[in-house]
Structure formats: structure tokens, C-alpha cells
């Protein structure tokens, strides 16, 4: 086992660090959390810079147009990008973490040619239309119907919690193509251009008051059969290719950004009056922060373990679930601690007293996105209990 950079990794890190130092300052000020078109433009601009410098698709295989970085280089990339405060991947997430890798693994040559470049250079934004009002944790029970009509599927149904749908060009859509077989066996994975007739996108406001996700109402949307990824009725398997990719390193960049948020919280605590001193003088607060920081450090080490195990032969069963379960817990505790430190400055999602307090309140609310999205914490516990520990199923 070793942690130090190899000579190649050290070179990669040094070059990347220099490039980030030169390019991050070129960006305009980051748009507000509520301004999704603005965020799209901002992130796309950054993605284009990455693309031109050869850093786009860092962990995508070379044949998919990616950089084909080693796992070590990928983690260095995430580490350095976060340290340099490069833009977080939000509107680009589905394209870069789900759709692109899925197309590389399962797409036709035409699909790859048409889509991969746009994801890499930031010109195409994707969203994920998996969940439905009646199919959340039990995703396989989804009902959105697709009926074959010549060269098209005619799709009718409803999707919900579709992140970034208001600014997306394409949607990775799961539909039911056969209602008469067991639920996992009648699902198909389609590429849906978001400008087709029959699609209505209704923004859905989140608990932090922004329209980061939406409801999709689909009324006889005609999607070409050529947009099918994988075989008809094989969509559940294709979807799991995507999810396994996300569970590998999907949350790591976000976790490193949480580490930055934690450091900002310490800086706030150091200037927040409390008793005779500051909030940071309170040992109860310091120790809770120490616990949280230790867990984030441990999760970074866990990531290194998983990524190196993945490179050697396969991600250990359950490691993605355990990572996400732990991360969801620690990010909620960080948010709880932030509210304690902010005290009455937490009563507004605005900066109070010239301190960057809004991001902390926002972070507390955002923590639910981690324990709910991408499989809730309870679902992760079920997966670990049944598939790793081998405990009997409930039913």
C-alpha cells in the first residue's frame, strides 16, 4: 500500500495545479444558486476550458473521448479541482457521471458520435428521468409507457425530481415497454431530446427554495427507436451500469467541496462571539467539528481504497452504499453543527454580519439531497444488510 504520488502522478498534479491556478480566476463570479440558466452557462464555460486543455472526461476511457486517467490521477484531479475552488459539477453531473459512461459502455456508434463530444465540451446538458411519483425507492415499478409505432416509441407518463430538467438538452429516460412481465424485465433506456413536442417541464421548488429539479409530463412524445440504448426490455441492466458508475466516485467531488464548507464554518466559528470568547473556544463545538473532519478524512481514504480496488479487479460489493450512507450522515451532522455555530444568524438564508452564513444554511438543507437522492440511506442499509451481510429478505 502506498499513498505518495508516483513520479508520473506528481507531474500530472503539478501541471494540473498550474493550469487551475491560471484558469479558475478567468471565470466570472459564480451565479446564484437560484439562477439555473446562469449556472448552466457558467459550468459550460468551465467545461469548455477543461475540454480545450484535455482535462474533460478525466476518468472516461480514451475511446470515448476521455482522458483515460488512472484512478490515482482521477482522485488527484478531484482533489486539486476542489482545492482550487473550481466550479462544482452540478448541471453537468448527469451527462458526465451517468449518461456519458452509459453510452460509452452500451451505446451504438452513432449515439456515441452524436452525444459524447457535446457532454465533454459542455455544450450538451443532460438530466435523468428515472423516478416517478409512484416509483422512487422502488424504481423498477415505474409506469411511464412506451408503445412502439414504426420507427418511434410513443411515450406517455410522468417523471419527478428530475434535476436540471429546466436547462437540459437531453434526458436519460426509463420507460416501460412491456407491462406483462416481472417489473425488472419490461424496462427500456431511451435518449429523449428535451425539445420534442409533448414534453412539459414544470419546475419543482426544493426545500431550499430553488427550482433545481422539475416534474416532466410526457404526452405521446415520439422518440426515435434509434435513441434506444441497449435492447428493448433490457433497460434495467443498462440503468444499473449507470448507477454503478455513479456509486464509484460520483459523490467524491461533492465530498471534497463539503470539506471546503467545513473549513469556512471553522473560519465563521472563529469570529462568532460566544460567551466570553468565540464559538471556536467552545470545546463541545471543536470536538464535534473534529469528529466530522475525521470522518471526512476517513471517507477520502475509503475512496482511495475503493478506487484502487476497482482498478485491480472490482469495487467491493457494498462499498458504494457504505460510502454514501456514511457521507450522508456526516454531511447532516456538519449542517447541524453549522446551525449551532450560527445560532440566530441561521434564521436567514442570507449572509448575516458580513459572514458567509447563507452557504451554511443552504448546506444544511442540501444534506437531504445526499440522504434521499440516488437511493435513500435506508435503501443503502437494505443493500448492505442483504447483499453484503447476507441477512434474509423481509418478504
Amino acid at each position, binding site marked *: *500500500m502506498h499513498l505518495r504520488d508516483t513520479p508520473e502522478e506528481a507531474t500530472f498534479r503539478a501541471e494540473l495545479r498550474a493550469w487551475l491556478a491560471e484558469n479558475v480566476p478567468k471565470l466570472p463570479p459564480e451565479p446564484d444558486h437560484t439562477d439555473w440558466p446562469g449556472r448552466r452557462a457558467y459550468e459550460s464555460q468551465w467545461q469548455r476550458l477543461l475540454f480545450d486543455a484535455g482535462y474533460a472526461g478525466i476518468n472516461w476511457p480514451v475511446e470515448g473521448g476521455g482522458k483515460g486517467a488512472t484512478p490515482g490521477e482521477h482522485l488527484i484531479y478531484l482533489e486539486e479541482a476542489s482545492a482550487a475552488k473550481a466550479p462544482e459539477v452540478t448541471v453537468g453531473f448527469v451527462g458526465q457521471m451517468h449518461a456519458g459512461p452509459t453510452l460509452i459502455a452500451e451505446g451504438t456508434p452513432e449515439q456515441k458520435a452524436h452525444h459524447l463530444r457535446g457532454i465533454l465540451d459542455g455544450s450538451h446538458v443532460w438530466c435523468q428521468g428515472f423516478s416517478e411519483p409512484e416509483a422512487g425507492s422502488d424504481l423498477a415499478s415505474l409506469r411511464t409507457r412506451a408503445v412502439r409505432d414504426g420507427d418511434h416509441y410513443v411515450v406517455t407518463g410522468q417523471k419527478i425530481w428530475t434535476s436540471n430538467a429546466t436547462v437540459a438538452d437531453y434526458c436519460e429516460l426509463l420507460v416501460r415497454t412491456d407491462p406483462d412481465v416481472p417489473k425488472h424485465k419490461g424496462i427500456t433506456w431511451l435518449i429523449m431530446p428535451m425539445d420534442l413536442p409533448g414534453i412539459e417541464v414544470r419546475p419543482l421548488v426544493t426545500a431550499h427554495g430553488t427550482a433545481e429539479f422539475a416534474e416532466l409530463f410526457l404526452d405521446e412524445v415520439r422518440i426515435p427507436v434509434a435513441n434506444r440504448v441497449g435492447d428493448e426490455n433490457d433497460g434495467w441492466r443498462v440503468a444499473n451500469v449507470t448507477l454503478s458508475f455513479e456509486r464509484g466516485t460520483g459523490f467524491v467531488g461533492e465530498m471534497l467541496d463539503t470539506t471546503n464548507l467545513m473549513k469556512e464554518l471553522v473560519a465563521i466559528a472563529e469570529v462568532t462571539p460566544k460567551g466570553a470568547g468565540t464559538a471556536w473556544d467552545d470545546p463541545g463545538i471543536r470536538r464535534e467539528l*473534529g469528529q466530522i*473532519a475525521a470522518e471526512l478524512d476517513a471517507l477520502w481514504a475509503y475512496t482511495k481504497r475503493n478506487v484502487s480496488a476497482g482498478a485491480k479487479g472490482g469495487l467491493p460489493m457494498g462499498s458504494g452504499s*457504505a460510502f454514501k450512507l456514511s457521507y450522508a450522515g456526516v454531511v447532516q451532522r456538519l449542517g447541524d453543527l453549522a446551525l449551532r455555530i450560527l445560532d440566530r444568524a441561521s434564521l436567514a438564508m442570507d449572509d448575516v454580519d458580513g459572514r458567509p452564513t447563507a452557504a451554511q444554511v443552504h448546506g444544511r438543507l442540501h444534506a437531504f439531497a445526499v440522504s434521499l437522492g440516488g437511493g435513500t440511506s435506508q435503501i443503502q442499509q437494505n443493500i448492505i444488510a442483504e447483499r453484503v451481510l447476507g441477512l434474509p429478505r423481509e418478504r
Partner: protein
Amino acid sequence: MDLTTSDDQQALQEMISRFAADRFDIDTVRAFGEPGGFDRAAWAELAELGTFGIALPEDAGGVGLGTIDAVLVHEALGAGLVPGPLVAATLAAGLVDGVIDGSVVPAVLDRPAHGPVVVEHLRDADVLLVVDGDGVSKVDTAGLAGTVLPHPTDPVTPVTLLDAVPTGERVAGPEVAAAWRRLGSVLASAQLVGLSEASTAVAVDYAKERQQFGRPIGSFQGLKHLLADCYMRTEVARSAVWSAGVNIDEPEPGDIDRAVAAARLMAARAATENGKTGVQVHGGMGFTWEVVAHLYLKRAWVLETQFGNPDDAAELVALKVAG
């Protein structure tokens, strides 16, 4: 970057686990705690495997492997509930003659800033090593006045109460003392990881067998989720402990003291929480002396205090974050 075990390292852990299962079955483990129960022959056999000299250079009689290998060995020892002053022996093997082959049994005391002077395994030790900021001192246990406490919390870890920290002969300076504190902490944390994993495994087995309401209790989600959390805590802690172990061998990538403290926090949490879950999952049987569940928890309570408790570790990590 590579944080996975090599084939050799897996074989090393398997060897220790197999030895622990064969030579330290649960009756032997329990017997170690009885007055006069310390089995010097078994201890010497453990030493013969290279256990205590694992990370010492070969020309010092060691096996010549790294700190991380010692970490892996201690993980397996913890999982096997192997008794005795394992951390003390690994620290002292390079300093005190006879420790490496098991003929001399050491105890170690990290000088407490305040509070009572309670020393593990002193009852059975030939030599006591006292660690403080200035160095390591060696104390002959023959002339030491102390009270062996009759009811140690972990029945397998005898403890002696001393009136004061004894002064002895200085045998190493501050660098060695600092290195011992780090290594001692990481090795105890490694044992905590082993305990976390083993107590979970025992509880999972029980949950699959024990029937209530006509089905295995492990099918109840209330227990499943408790046990899933145990798995999560073990793996997160293991990652922190391995990382700290590697960091000691390769000082440049990170802050070693922060890594050691983070490892302690995660490992102590995993072992104590999983230990408690282990008792709870066993129901009324879990509260009996006979069922092993309590032994994992009690050992965890002992180890989490060695070379830095979780509160001190949390304080250290917090101050490092603040920079």
C-alpha cells in the same frame, strides 16, 4: 496511490487469524484473564510467528515489513480477541531484549496528564515502559508497589493501580517516545477495527439463526439497519486506520498526527458502537457472561483509551483543521 492489501498481506492476515482461532480459542482467551492465567507458552508461540517484530528490520531480528503490515497484523489480532500486551510488545520489541521472542513480557504506560495511574497487563509483565514527552523509561516490575484490581472491566485485560507514575531508567529519547505514541495509537486502533468486524460477524450469525415470530430476527429491518451501520462504520474506520499506517511509512503525503487521531476517532466509534449493537442483537443472551458479545465491547472500551482517547483526538483534528 494504492490502498488495497497485496496477496502477501492477505496471507499474513490469514496466518494470524488462523493461529488466533487455533491457539486462542475462546476458553484460552478467557483463561488469560484469570489470576496466574497468562500462558507464557502461548505468548511465545505468538511471538515466534514474527508478530512483535513484524515492522523491525531483519538485522534487528524483525521481519522487515512496514507499519502498515503491523497494522494488518493487529487488525487480525483484535478480531481474534487475542489477549495480552500486544501493543506494548510490538513497541518494545526493538528496545528491550527478550520481548521479540516472547520471553520477556512488557507493559506500557503512556504517562497520564492527571487522574489515576491504571496500567493494563502490568500483573503479568516483567518490565514496564513509561512513555512521556521526554522519552521512554524502563521500570523493573519486581519492586513496584501496586494493586491488581480484582474486577477489571474487560475480564481479559488485568489492570493494576499504581500510587504514582514510577521513575525508571531512561532508555530512549523524545523522538522514540513520539514515534511510540503514534504507532501505539495506530496499532490499538487497528485492533479496534478487528473488533468492529468480528463483533458484527458474530451478531450477523446470531441474527440469521435466532427465530422469533416464526422467522429469523435478521429479517427484521430494525436489526438489519443496525447491522448495516456496523458494516459501514467498520469499513470507514478501516480506511482511516490503513491510511494512518501508510502515512507513518510515507510521511510526506499528509499530516501524520491528524491521520493517527482521525483513525482513533473512527476506530473507537466503530468498535464501541458495533460492540453495543452486538450485545443488543443477542437479546437477553447478550447480557450474559457466557455469550462473547460483551467481550468485544469491553475490549473496545480498553483500547479506545490507549495512546489518546477520542476526545483528545477530536480536539487535535479540530485544531489541525483550523490550521
